[in-house]
């Protein structure tokens, strides 16, 4: 350790610590070694990292995936870029397809955004079943919404509560011309922004309320790739928030 110069003022300890962590992150390789905590921008990115780990392993390994501040860990047995066994999950491996596996992993991670990967066995016992899931199949399952996915009722509810709405994917719309013009303006600004900024992911479900005027506010609902923009009267704010909390509690 280098002793500080006597006559030089130094930043407070908290700021020095912040700077130290920032420098360490800057110096760290893009793909970090096993045994280090890795943070992700969203829960989906964390699931993607687990699947990415499947794609990195060729020789048979058992990898433990730990979630920060939780005791339980997932144990993934991987070989030849295929996931061949999972422990720590309630999954009927004989009948599960890639979408089932991805959904179960996501459920087990439970929204976690900080994970650690450790190799726990280099010569793992391989299961007798021939069933396995390739990295590619898991990635495709992560990207594709389930065919039988149910669009939640919140889209219909928001439309019913709004004075104008715009389904960004299909272009369907309803409402007064001025309100629709504002919604198209918002959709365009959103598209430009999302294209520029990689940090923001469209796939995270959310309800956003934007202040507009004293009488109205704008709403954005995103769920499984479906995006709805709307304008509602100010009196509907609490109702919308309660609807969202109800949806989250149900799902």
């Amino acid at each position: 350790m280098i002793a500080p110069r006597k006559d030089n003022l130094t930043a407070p300890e908290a700021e020095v610590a912040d700077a130290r962590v920032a420098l360490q992150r800057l110096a760290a390789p893009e793909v970090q070694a096993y045994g280090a905590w890795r943070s992700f921008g969203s829960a989906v990115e964390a699931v993607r990292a687990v699947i990415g780990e499947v794609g990195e392993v060729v020789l048979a390994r058992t990898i433990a995936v730990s979630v920060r501040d939780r005791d339980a860990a997932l144990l993934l047995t991987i070989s030849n870029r295929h996931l061949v066994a999972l422990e720590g999950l309630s999954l009927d491996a004989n009948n599960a397809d890639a979408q089932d596996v991805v959904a179960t992993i996501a459920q087990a991670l439970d929204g976690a955004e900080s994970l650690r990967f450790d190799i726990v066995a280099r010569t793992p016992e391989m299961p007798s079943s021939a069933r396995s899931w390739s990295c590619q199949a898991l990635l495709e399952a992560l990207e594709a919404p389930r065919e039988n996915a149910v669009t939640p009722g919140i889209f219909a509810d928001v439309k019913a509560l709004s004075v104008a709405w715009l389904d960004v994917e299909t272009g369907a719309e309803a409402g007064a011309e001025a309100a629709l013009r504002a919604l198209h303006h918002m959709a365009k600004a959103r598209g430009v922004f999302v294209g520029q900024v990689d940090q923001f992911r469209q796939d995270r479900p959310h309800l956003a309320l934007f202040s507009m005027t004293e009488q109205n506010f704008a709403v954005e609902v995103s769920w499984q790739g479906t995006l709805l923009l709307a304008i509602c009267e100010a009196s509907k704010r609490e109702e919308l928030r309660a609807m969202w909390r109800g949806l989250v509690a149900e799902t």
Partner: protein
Amino acid sequence: MTVADCLEALRSDIPGCQVAAFGDVAARLILKASHDAAMSREKLDGLCAEAARCFAMTVGTGDPKAATQDSIVMTAQDMRVYMRAQGRADFICLLCTLDSNPEEVVPKGVAALSQLAGDA
């Protein structure tokens, strides 16, 4: 009162508040934040990007006479509240619990924003 003191006081004044941050959407940076040790830089960067997106979407759609703008983003896990003075790039971000009441949170954030703008 320093910016750090102001953010610390703001966070402690809102039950369950995990982050109180002051940032700049033009620079896409969180300049100062109050949070616990487990909070990652990536998470703060994500909040800043989300704030920038929210404000970008509402440019030209709101009341130009309004003193402040706010955006509330509810996810499956939490509620993010972004506030800024009209036309300003600097903003305050609060990461709260999903059951937080924005009617209580937003005025506290706006008061802190005024205080920081006064100090600037």
